[in-house]
Each structure stands twice: as structure tokens, then as C-alpha cells.
């Protein structure tokens, strides 16, 4: 809050502290929505510019990160609409086509990806943006279920169920696409 107060009082340079603190979180969430790192970087920059311009509207009733992730989510969705990219829905069979393509690409790079961390990261990329986002917010965004509910505009119970299901689907992806690799590694 002290940094925010300084920025609001005209100390623009203090905003760089907030950018450095949250850039990885915002960039990771953005990457759950957009396909390339270039696009993710463009959208993430846009998020921080929007957050700066709207900083006076931040009341401090919730965490700054919760407020920032709300802006991130809406900015990603707006970007996808503008680019007319397809948001892969949960039940869309194309998710599995994409997953298969990712899997094929990964088999060629198995040597580079033989680690548990990479395996989980790649499995997350196979999920729908909604599933990947909720997992990222919960495990890396330091957000509680109530805060995630605020970000996504849903009820906390609905978020809890979605998180359970997202982890279930992640487990399925790992079983389907990585069981062989895991056996190779260990």
C-alpha cells in the first residue's frame, strides 16, 4: 500500500517495484491464454499500463495481486476477442487435438524435458485456459479460493469445484501423455 500511495502521489518510478514484483505472475497467467511469448509479453505490458492508469480506483479492500489478476484476465479475454483466436472450451475435442500436437512436439524434445517440473508445466499447457489459470492462481498466484472467485467473477464454491476438476484433468493428461516419459526418467 505504501508503494501504491507513493505512485498515486506522483512518484512514477516506484511503479517499477510493483512491475518487478508481479511481472512473472502476470506473464505466466497471460501465457495460459495466448499462444506465443511475444503476445504474452505485449498483453502483460498492457495489463501493467491499464493497472497504472486505473490505480486511483484500487480501494485496497482486496489484495493488489487480486485486483491485478482481474485486470489480467479481462485483458487476455479482450486480446483474444480482438485477435479472434479460439478459446478452447473444456469439452471441446480440439483440446485433445492440441494436446496430441503438443505431445508429438515434446517427444522430439524428450531429452530437454526429462524433469518433473517440465512434465507438469507441459501438462498444464495442455489444459484449457480456464483450468490452467485456476491452477496457476491457486498454486503460484498466492490467491485463496475466495480471491480467485473475485478474479473470475464466480462463486467460491464453483471455483472450488472447478479447481478439483482442473487438477483431475491435469492428472489425466499426465497419465495419458507422460506415463512413458516418467517411467523412462525414474
Amino acid at each position, binding site marked *: 500500500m505504501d508503494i501504491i500511495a507513493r505512485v*498515486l502521489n506522483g512518484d*512514477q518510478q516506484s*511503479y*517499477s517495484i510493483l*512491475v518487478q514484483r508481479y*511481472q*512473472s*505472475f502476470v*506473464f*505466466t497467467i497471460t*501465457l495460459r491464454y495466448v499462444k506465443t*511469448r511475444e503476445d*504474452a*509479453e505485449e498483453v*502483460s*505490458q498492457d495489463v*501493467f*499500463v491499464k493497472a*497504472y*492508469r*486505473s*490505480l*486511483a*480506483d*484500487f*480501494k485496497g479492500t*482486496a489484495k493488489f495481486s487480486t*485486483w491485478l489478476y*482481474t*485486470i489480467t484476465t*479481462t485483458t487476455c479475454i479482450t486480446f483474444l476477442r480482438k485477435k479472434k483466436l479460439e478459446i478452447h472450451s473444456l469439452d471441446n475435442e480440439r483440446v485433445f487435438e492440441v494436446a496430441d500436437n503438443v505431445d508429438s512436439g515434446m517427444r522430439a524434445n524428450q531429452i530437454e524435458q526429462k*524433469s*518433473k*517440473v517440465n*512434465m*507438469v*508445466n507441459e501438462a498444464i499447457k495442455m489444459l484449457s485456459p480456464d483450468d490452467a489459470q485456476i*491452477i*496457476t492462481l491457486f*498454486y*503460484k498466484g498466492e490467491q485463496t*479460493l475466495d480471491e480467485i472467485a*473475485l478474479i473470475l*467473477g464466480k462463486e467460491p464454491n464453483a471455483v*472450488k*469445484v472447478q*479447481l*478439483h476438476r482442473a*487438477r*483431475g484433468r*491435469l*492428472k*489425466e493428461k*499426465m497419465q495419458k501423455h*507422460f*506415463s512413458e516419459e*516418467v*517411467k523412462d*526418467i*525414474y
Partner: protein
Amino acid sequence: MKFMMNTNFLDTPAGDEGIEVRLWEYIDGLSSNEEKSVVEKLIAENAGWRAKYHELLQVHQSLNLVELEEPSMRFTKNVMEQIAKYQIAPATKTYINSKIIWGIGIFFLTMIVGFLIYGIGQIDWTVAGDSKSTLGVDLSKVDYGQMFNSNLMNGVMMLNVVLGLFLLDRYLANKNRKLKDA
């Protein structure tokens, strides 16, 4: 670097969703004390629960290991260069006058109540028992054409619709803003 990992969880077939939900709540620390004791007992005594618990715990621990993606080295500099062009916008509450919104709302509500009172006043209650209409009005004798041909009536109705849409838009925008602020 070689990770120590139990791969059994990848081979276990999917089990009952209800068990998974209870176990996830237990793992996430969301269970009540009573539920926690019950789940702990089930894990200790039931092999199926124990296997499922270890399976989910593996996924949970794996997710905790996931690393965040890093943007380019110039990212902060790029953002700072961009925001240098802008000023912080004044807080929304400073330029939205809630009195105006309330005024429009009261006007709209008064119009509706007025029409209702006028409409109810036109009903002939003496024919309420007439089997032709449960409202006490002989609907077959109502001249709808005359009612809706009045330019004044059409104008008032159009105004009501526009005001209604305007208020709905303000309400949804405010709700959305509050959600973002929270």
C-alpha cells in the same frame, strides 16, 4: 538433477469423485476439524483411501514445484517507458454522481407506481365475479388499437424503456466495477 518420485499415481485408475473432492479439501486444508479427523481415520484404515490420498498428494506436490514463466529482461523498462506517456486517471467515484443515478431511479420507480395505480383505478371491481375474466375486466371489450395508437402513450412507453435500459446499464457497470475494485 534426478527427482525422487513415486510414479504409481500415474497408473492408478480414476476413482470415485466424491472421495477425491473430500481428499482435495483435506490436502488444501479446507476441511473442518471434524471432517479432517474422519478423513485421517479413513486414510489410516482404508487402503483405497490411502492409495487415492497418496495419488492426489503427488499431483499437489508436483504443482507446487511448477515454476513461473519469466518475461524478457527489458519488460520492466518497456512498461515504464509506456506509462511515462500517461497520467493516472481520476478515481471513478469522483466523476460519477450517485445522486443523479438515484434521481433517475426514483423517477423511473414513480412512473411505474403511477401507471400501476392508474391501471388498478380503471378496473371495474363490480364485475370481478364475471366469468369472462378473472381480473374483473371484460377483455373482449377493450379497444387495444385505441390504447396503443396514442402518440403520447407510445412516447411515454418508449421513454420508460430507454430509462430502464439506461438504469440496467448503470447497475451492471457499477457491479462490474465493484467486482474489479474488490
